[in-house]
């Protein structure tokens, strides 16, 4: 197990280095003098001079990268040009909101995706299977910002049941918080439910053809117990590890969902930063999400290897 972990860490390090190079390299795409672009519309010479100094613009690219990297490793992602706050503070402020949204979205995704996948596998080739597949295709093909708009139209504008926007902190008023989060969480969970359904269906089909399932049936275990206790339990392992890979979908989706429902989270942070030309924030957000993705992926791999010896030995 230890060698497996070490082997994975060895591949992670160069990946992280490439990620950091990529994100640092984004700056190079800016046309013209980065200090002038970053200084914003006023082009204050003092700001430009300050930027030139802090960004070490007179030094070669490789040296600038090392300076930047040293900051990153010390937890310094730079400063927002707009609010003058450290990027890390801004991220720490917005992250909990998106995490709540993401967790609720996963609840929706699991509650829809797994049962639908189980039903599709158990009733393979029937109308149920077909219906579940259609549901998955629908989930994968609906742009989630449009789904959000349509839900607002139905539940906020027409029926007046739920607020269209306006985030309330759960510590202030849990009820109002949930009311403002239920639609965005459903919208975000919808696409992931589709992916989970497909994974569940194929994992269940694979498990259901195993001999121990036949044995369980043969010894007279009820069909319900065969499916839920024997099959689903084993099928869940690949489902959950594959599900961890949906983290990126979740964050990409959160950007749009937060925009539609005006939720002050991570996604709103990067979009606002883009329009304010607050490049340090954009870089910081991408760096944090990419690192989180790599770490999560690693954790999923390790978890998978822990329950499945064939992976770590193979």
């Amino acid at each position, binding site marked *: 197990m230890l060698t497996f972990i070490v082997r994975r860490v060895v*591949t992670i390090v*160069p*990946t*992280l280095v*490439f*990620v950091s*190079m*990529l*994100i640092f390299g*984004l*700056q190079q*795409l*800016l*046309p013209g003098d980065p200090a002038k672009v970053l200084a914003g519309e006023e082009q204050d010479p003092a700001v430009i001079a300050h930027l030139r100094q802090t960004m070490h613009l007179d030094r070669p690219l490789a040296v600038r990268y090392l300076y930047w990297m040293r900051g990153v490793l010390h937890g310094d992602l730079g400063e927002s040009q707009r609010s003058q706050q450290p990027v890390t503070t801004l991220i720490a402020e917005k992250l909990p909101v998106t995490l709540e949204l993401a967790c609720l979205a996963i609840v929706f995704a699991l509650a829809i995706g797994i049962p639908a996948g189980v039903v599709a596998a158990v009733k393979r080739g029937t109308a149920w299977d077909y219906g579940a597949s259609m549901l998955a*295709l*629908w989930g*994968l*093909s*609906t*742009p989630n*910002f*449009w789904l959000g*708009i*349509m839900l*607002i*139209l139905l539940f*906020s*504008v027409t029926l007046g049941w739920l607020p*269209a926007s306006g985030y309330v902190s759960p510590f202030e008023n849990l009820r109002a918080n949930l009311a403002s989060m239920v639609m965005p969480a459903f919208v975000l969970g919808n696409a992931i439910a589709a992916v989970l359904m497909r994974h569940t269906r194929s994992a269940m089909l694979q498990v259901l053809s195993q001999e121990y399932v036949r044995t369980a049936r043969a010894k007279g275990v009820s069909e319900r117990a065969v499916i839920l206790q024997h099959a689903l339990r084993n099928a869940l392992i690949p489902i959950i590890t594959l599900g961890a890979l949906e*983290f*990126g*979908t979740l*964050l*990409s*989706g959160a*950007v*749009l969902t937060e*925009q*539609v429902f005006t939720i002050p989270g991570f996604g709103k942070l*990067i*979009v606002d*930063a*883009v*329009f304010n030309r607050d*490049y340090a924030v*954009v*870089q910081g*957000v*991408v760096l944090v*999400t*990419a*690192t989180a*993705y*790599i770490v999560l*992926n690693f954790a999923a791999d390790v978890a998978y290897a822990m329950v499945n010896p064939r992976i770590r030995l193979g």
Partner: protein
Amino acid sequence: MTDTLADRLSAAGGAPDGTRSAPPAVLTGRTHWLRRLLRRPMSVVALAVIAGFVATAVLAPWIAPYDPLAASFSDVRKPPSASHWFGTDEIGRDVASRVIFGARASLLAGVVSVLISLAIGVPAGLLAGYAGGSIDMVLSRMTDALLACPFLILAIALSAFLGPSLTNAMIAIGISATPAFVRLARGTTLAVKAEEFVLAARAIGNAPWRIALRHVLPNIVPPLLVQSTLAIAAAVIAEASLSFLGLGQQPPQPSWGSMLNTAKDYLDNAPWMALWPGLSIFLLVLSFNLVGDGLRDALDPREA
């Protein structure tokens, strides 16, 4: 696009038929996957819908009842009627005409960004898979790095630094989608490389680049074709998303994503503004997904 690739496929002659141990679908001779695809009613309907959208985009100036940019302040936010089938928007432009012209941005972005991904991803994947060793190591780690950045967030960051425009959105989407193509091309190359006909080609003294281009490349086309179709679906959504955020097609030029962004602010008095652009994205994306799924099944002999 299907036709040219189909031509290339049959021109390539295909690989020996038969048993394979590797999971990626190796082309099974001149099996008529196109015919198998056309036997699926859903795929046929989806292909017809795509053809309809393409025709709409190409013929937009002749089909659209109005100029998509012509504002009319006497017709602001009029509900659908005989003169304006889909209603009018916040400055009196005809929504139907804008939806028709909007097909251009979506289809263009879908196809061009996938072409960008193919142009970078296939050579890189072929090289990594065929050359192996340290080249493979470096290319694979770079791919992992790109894959680690969530697709849309990377596209947003790229278009932020490149500047908002439809062209830059296509470049950003194309680059963000590239790693999936590198992985696929690399994986299938590894599988094909182990096939006997490649060993035979090597044994008779072909140069490595010749084997890679003439023997390996034609055989990795089928899975790439499936991936491309599904990637167009993802790219159409991505373009709409970027335009929705204001990073794609710039106003006043029509795009479904930016139309939805405006429509969001008029939901209580002009809900029709939000319906048609969204429905168009959904239909186009669904069709590409259906064709992609159909192609995958048609190209995979195990499913037939």
